[in-house]
C-alpha cells in the first residue's frame, strides 16, 4: 500500500517537473499552458520536552510533506487537491488531506464546494498546519476536533450576503471519517455531521480589521471509534488586525469553544479557548504569544492550560524558521519546538 502511494507520488512529481521543465524553456508557452499550479511544502519539527513520556521527545522529524495541485477545471470552477504525507505508526503514509471542487458562483454571492476538506469552523481549522503562526495546534482544537482538525467528505454552501459590509453564511453536510488508530484520549466528530458558520468583518479604520465569527457543528461524536454520542460544538471567534505601517502587523485572535456531548451517564459540557497575540515588526519577523485553556472531551474532565512564546523568521514567502517555547501549567512540563517550513511552487489558500 505504501509502495503504491510512493509510486503515485513520484509519478505525479516526475510528470509535473517534466512538464514544468518543458515549459520554462519557452516562457510564452508557460503562460498559455494548461498546467495546474503544483507545489510542495515540507514541515520539519524538532521537539524536546521535560515530560519524558511526551511522544517524539528529543527528536527531529518531518511532520508533513504536502503536495498541492490547484487549478481551474472550467470557468468559475476551481479544483484543489492536497496530498499529505505524514507519519503514522512509525512510517510515512500518504493521504488525501483535501480534494475539492468549488463552483465559485451558482448565483451571485453563492458558491458550492464539494469533496473532502477542512470544515469552515472558526479561524484556524481551515488553515493548513504550515500556515499556522505556531508549531502546534491550539489545545482546544486538538481536544475537541482531534489532531487532524475537523475534516470531512461532503459539501458546503457559502453565501456572501448583498450587504454594504462583509457577512458570509456557510452551511455544510458531511461524512466524517474517524482515524482507526484513535486512542483512549482522542475524541472526534464522526458519521453524519452538519455545520454552519456566520462570518462578518468590519474595517474600523483604513489600517485595521475586526472579524467576528460564530460556528457550530452537530452530529455524532466518536470516542474509541463508537458513534453513539449526540455531540454539538459551538464556537465564537474574534480577531483584530492592525497594520501600523507597511510590513508591520499586530494580530489578536481568540476562539472560544463549547462541546456538548450526550453520553449514557448524562450530558457533558466542555469548554476551551485560546488567545494569540502576534506582532510583526517587519515582513521578516513575528513575535507571538498564545494562551490556551481547555477541558478534554471525555467523561473524566481534566482542564489544562498552557502558555507559548513564539519567534518566527519569515526567510522568504515560503520558508519559515520558528522557535517556540510552551509551558504546561498543570503538568509543569517545558517544551521547545524548532520548526522549519519550506516550499516550492505556486501555492494558494482561499481567503480565511
Amino acid at each position: 500500500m505504501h509502495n503504491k502511494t510512493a509510486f503515485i507520488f513520484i509519478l505525479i512529481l516526475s510528470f509535473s517537473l517534466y512538464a514544468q521543465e518543458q515549459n520554462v524553456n519557452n516562457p510564452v508557452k508557460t503562460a498559455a499552458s494548461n498546467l495546474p499550479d503544483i507545489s510542495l511544502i515540507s514541515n520539519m519539527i524538532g521537539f524536546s520536552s521535560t515530560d519524558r513520556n511526551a511522544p517524539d521527545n528529543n527528536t527531529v522529524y518531518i511532520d508533513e510533506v504536502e503536495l498541492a495541485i490547484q487549478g481551474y477545471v472550467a470557468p468559475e470552477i476551481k479544483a484543489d487537491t492536497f496530498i499529505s504525507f505524514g507519519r503514522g505508526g512509525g512510517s510515512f503514509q500518504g493521504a488525501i488531506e483535501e480534494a475539492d471542487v468549488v463552483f465559485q458562483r451558482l448565483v451571485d454571492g453563492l458558491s458550492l464546494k464539494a469533496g473532502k476538506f477542512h470544515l469552515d469552523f472558526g479561524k484556524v481549522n481551515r488553515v493548513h498546519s504550515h500556515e499556522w503562526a505556531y508549531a502546534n495546534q491550539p489545545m482546544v482544537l486538538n481536544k475537541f476536533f482531534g489532531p487532524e482538525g475537523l475534516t470531512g467528505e461532503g459539501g458546503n454552501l457559502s453565501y456572501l450576503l448583498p450587504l454594504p459590509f462583509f457577512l458570509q453564511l456557510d452551511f455544510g453536510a458531511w461524512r466524517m471519517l474517524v482515524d482507526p488508530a484513535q486512542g483512549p484520549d482522542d475524541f472526534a466528530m464522526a458519521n453524519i455531521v452538519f455545520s454552519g458558520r456566520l462570518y462578518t468583518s468590519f474595517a474600523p479604520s483604513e489600517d485595521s480589521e475586526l472579524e467576528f465569527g460564530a460556528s457550530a457543528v452537530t452530529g455524532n461524536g466518536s470516542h474509541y471509534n463508537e458513534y453513539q454520542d449526540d455531540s454539538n460544538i459551538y464556537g465564537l471567534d474574534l480577531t483584530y488586525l492592525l497594520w501600523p505601517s507597511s510590513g508591520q502587523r499586530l494580530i489578536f485572535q481568540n476562539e472560544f469553544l463549547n462541546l456538548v456531548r450526550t453520553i449514557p451517564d448524562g450530558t457533558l459540557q466542555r469548554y476551551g479557548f485560546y488567545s494569540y497575540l502576534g506582532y510583526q515588526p517587519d515582513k521578516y519577523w513575528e513575535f507571538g504569544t498564545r494562551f490556551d485553556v481547555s477541558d478534554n472531551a471525555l467523561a473524566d474532565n481534566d482542564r489544562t492550560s498552557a502558555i507559548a512564546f513564539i519567534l518566527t523568521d519569515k526567510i522568504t514567502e515560503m520558508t519559515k524558521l520558528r522557535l517556540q517555547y510552551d509551558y504546561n501549567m498543570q503538568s509543569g512540563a517545558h517544551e521547545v519546538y524548532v520548526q522549519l517550513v519550506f516550499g516550492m511552487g505556486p501555492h494558494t489558500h482561499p481567503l480565511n
Partner: protein
Amino acid sequence: MKGSLKVFALTLLILLAASQYSFCEQKVNVVATTSDLADLARNIGGDKVNVVSLSKGNQDLHTIEPRPSMVINIKNADMLIVVGMDLDMWAKSLADAARNSKVMIGSRGYVDASANIVKLDVPAKVDASMGDIHIYGNPHYWISPANGRIIVKEICDKLIELQPENAGYFKKNYDDYVSKLDQSIKKWKEMLKPFSGTKIITYHESWPYFAEEFDLKIDGFIEPKPGISPSPSHVLSLEEKIKSDGVKLILVEPFYDIREAEKIAKDTGIKNVVVASSVGGLSGTGTYLEMLDYDISKIADALKN
C-alpha cells in the same frame, strides 16, 4: 427574543434595499489593486466612475494581506483592475471570495493592466534560488510614464466597452490625460538628460522600466535577491561595487529599510533618495503625475549636487 429577530430582519431588509439602490446608479464601480491604477482610472473615468484602491502607496505590494472588508468592494465592482504578472496575486483570493461574475478572471470587467506592456526581465527558468522572481517578468512596469500611457489606454477601452454611451466622455479624458502625460514626459526627460548613463543602486528590483526610459543604469540592489533581506556580507560587497563602479545614487522606497540604504550611502559617500513607487507613498505624491514629478525632481536634485 421575537422582537429582536424582527429588528434584525428589518435591519437586513433596509441594508439590502440600500445596497440594491446603489446598483441603480449609472456610475461604473471600479476597484483597482493599487493607488496608481486607481488614480489613472479616476482621470479617465472622471465623474462617471467610483474608484476604490485596495492598497495604499506606502505599502509593499508584495505583502498586502487580503482582508474580508476588501471583498465587499470587489463584490460591488463592475470593473477590477490588477497589476497582474503575479504581483497582486492576493487579489485572486478576494475575487474568489466576492463571487462577482462581472470581475472574475477572464470576464468582461476584469482588466489586467499588464496585458500590452513590453515586459522586462522575463526569466527563462524560475526557481526559488533566484529569490522572489515573477515568472511573467518584472511587474513594476507602471513606474515608467511611457507604460502609464499604455495603462490608461487599457482602462479607457474597458470603460468604453462597459459604458458605450459615455465613449466620447472617456475618450476626451483619455486624450487630455495623455497630452498632459506626454508634456510631463518631455519635461522629465529634459531634467534627467544631463545624467544619462548614470549608475544607480536600488533597494528592490522595482525600477528597471523607469531606468530604461530615462537611461539610468542599475548597477546592483540592496536586496541580494528579490525579497531576500540583505546580509552583512552582501552589503560589504555592494559597497565595494559602488566604489569601484562609480555609482552615484541609491533609490529606496519608504517601506524598505531606509536606515540600511542611508548607511550604505554614508559608507560610500553617495546620495540616498527616498522615492515613491506608488501614488501616495510619500507626501506630495497624491497623483500619478505628482509621484513621477516628485521622484524625478528628487533624483535630478541629488545628482546635481
